[in-house]
């Protein structure tokens, strides 16, 4: 069989496993895995911008917050169903991302990281601002009701939400895959690696860079809306700068400029703090820091890069044994 067929079979098995998962573990674990799916969408979005396009963002928590708040406000004040809020959240974030991408065109490297970091730090304050309090609920935030499974399905709400998120994830990954594996992806990488040469080849740098910002924010916004529904609660302080740093950690650990890396990264940022929390309240971040340093020095390709390397070795070894 060709490697491509192997890959398809593997992907199918993985998907089947992911569908079966919520029926095998406790409700709390289902919730945790649900968050993994949400984070995976964010990390894919961030990877489009930072991994593929080379624009470092330390502020994606802000777009996540906007997506979450759009969903919460639509559900609370306008009585929208949860699934209808996703496209709106994505669209609103796309616009915000595109607008933030315009000034970001003039910022390179460290400066962009700095400006987005400032956005992340300022976000909770903006959400608490008293003149929008009637919409955002101020410091208290907004509580969302957990949606019931439709069509009279005999599953728990957590399981339904997990499956719903999984479907969205598959959709978003399909979009991301198609986007990154073609002309657009090559343009993004070309801009990252050599902006001047890319322009000379006829790639419209400014357009692609702002679009990358917008699309990246769109992914993050959809995930934010899903996250709000899953957690059933939004409040300014859950979107502090730490969240954005979490996302950066996710893509570095998972693998920069890798689609599968988003899933590894999401597993990492969801479960490592859980284990580390038992040692000390401060331990998760200390462990994050040490892991980050270790990955930068020892495994710059992240987990995805490691898997690729190991797979290549295995395939290579098999190839050698054949005459």
């Amino acid at each position, binding site marked *: 069989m060709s490697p491509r067929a192997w890959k398809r079979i593997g992907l199918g098995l993985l998907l089947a496993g992911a569908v079966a998962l919520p029926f095998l573990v406790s409700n709390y674990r289902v919730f945790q895995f649900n968050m993994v799916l949400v984070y995976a969408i964010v990390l894919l979005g961030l990877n489009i911008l930072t991994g593929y396009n080379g624009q470092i963002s*330390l502020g994606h928590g802000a777009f996540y917050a906007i997506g979450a708040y759009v969903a919460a406000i639509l559900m609370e004040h306008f009585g929208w169903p949860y699934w209808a809020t996703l496209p709106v959240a994505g669209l609103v974030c796309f616009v915000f991302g595109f607008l933030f991408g315009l000034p970001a065109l003039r910022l390179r490297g460290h400066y962009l990281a700095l400006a987005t970091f*400032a956005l992340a730090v300022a976000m909770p304050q903006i959400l608490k601002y008293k003149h929008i309090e009637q919409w955002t609920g101020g410091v208290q935030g907004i509580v969302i009701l957990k949606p019931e499974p439709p069509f009279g399905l005999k599953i728990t709400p957590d399981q339904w939400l997990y499956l719903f998120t999984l479907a969205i994830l598959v959709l978003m990954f399909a979009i991301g895959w198609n986007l990154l594996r073609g002309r657009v992806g090559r343009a993004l990488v070309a801009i990252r690696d050599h902006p001047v040469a890319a322009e000379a080849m006829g790639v419209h740098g400014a357009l692609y860079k702002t679009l990358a910002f917008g699309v990246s924010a769109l992914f993050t916004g959809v995930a934010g809306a899903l996250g709000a529904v899953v957690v059933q609660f939004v409040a300014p302080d859950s979107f502090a700068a730490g969240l954005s740093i979490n996302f950066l950690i996710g893509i570095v650990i998972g693998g920069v400029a890798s689609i599968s890396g988003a899933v590894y990264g999401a597993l990492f940022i969801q479960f490592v703090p859980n284990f580390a929390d038992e040692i000390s309240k401060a331990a998760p971040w200390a462990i994050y820091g040490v892991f980050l340093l270790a990955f930068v020095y020892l495994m710059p390709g992240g987990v995805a890069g490691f898997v690729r390397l190991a797979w290549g070795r295995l395939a290579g070894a098999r190839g050698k044994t054949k005459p």
Partner: protein
Amino acid sequence: MEAFLHQVFSGLATGGIYASLALALVMIYQSTNHINFAQGEMAMFSTYLAWSMINGGMPYWWAFLLTVLVSFVVGIVIERIIIRPVEDAPLLSVVTVFVALLVIFNSVAGWIFTYTIKTFPSPFPEQPPFGNRYISSHELGSIGITLVVLVALYLFFRFTPLGLAMRAAAQNPVSSRLAGIRVGWMLALGWGLAAAVGAVAGLLIAPVVYLEPNMMSGVLLYAFAAALVGGIDNPFGAVLGGFMVGVLENLIGAYVIGTELKLTVALVLIVGVLLFKPSGMFGKVFVSRV
């Protein structure tokens, strides 16, 4: 009018602290073109060191001196061990290392010293000096110390052979190396000095914002804004920018939008400066050749 003057003076005092931290940022930026995201957390950690020394019964100024020295050494060690390997790495790796340092310092401080908010002593008397009504002793003292640090650094860089070597290494590493300057060590020294200056800033701001592991996140943002306003490659610009940002923050907070959106002012300032005058007021305009 009195309230206005009071706002201006206390703005100058916090501005002095932003200026110190901005100076630390500029020092590292000048020699390596990196913006150190962990500068604030390093300063916070130094402040905790000073706190434990003072609580151990050491007189304030001895603790101050010792903390600055220890920070200097720690800064050098960090550059040599952690920053060195990624010196020529892609930008994302560098930023990631800075973020890693940030979270490590933050969490280790929380781990060792707990997250409870602590008061930090000020070395200056409680009564305002000369019976005035506008400025407290601590505020005046902070401004004084900032200026002393600035002058000392100026004298060091301008009149000592080592300072000259450091400037040369920052300006043209290749030629400096040919002239026999150990460029790597000069960068490490720059990191040490930055950490020491940052420690001074931490010690001065701690009595105002109280000591806790997250105390520097806002301060760091203002220091960034200050460095950018003044021009991130110009130490004097950064100091002036620090004072300006401090006053601006206080006045806008008091008269325009209230204190809740103070950090947003820093955000707007950072994005605004980067957009309209990326080199700041006194920075060099950078032209890249293809």
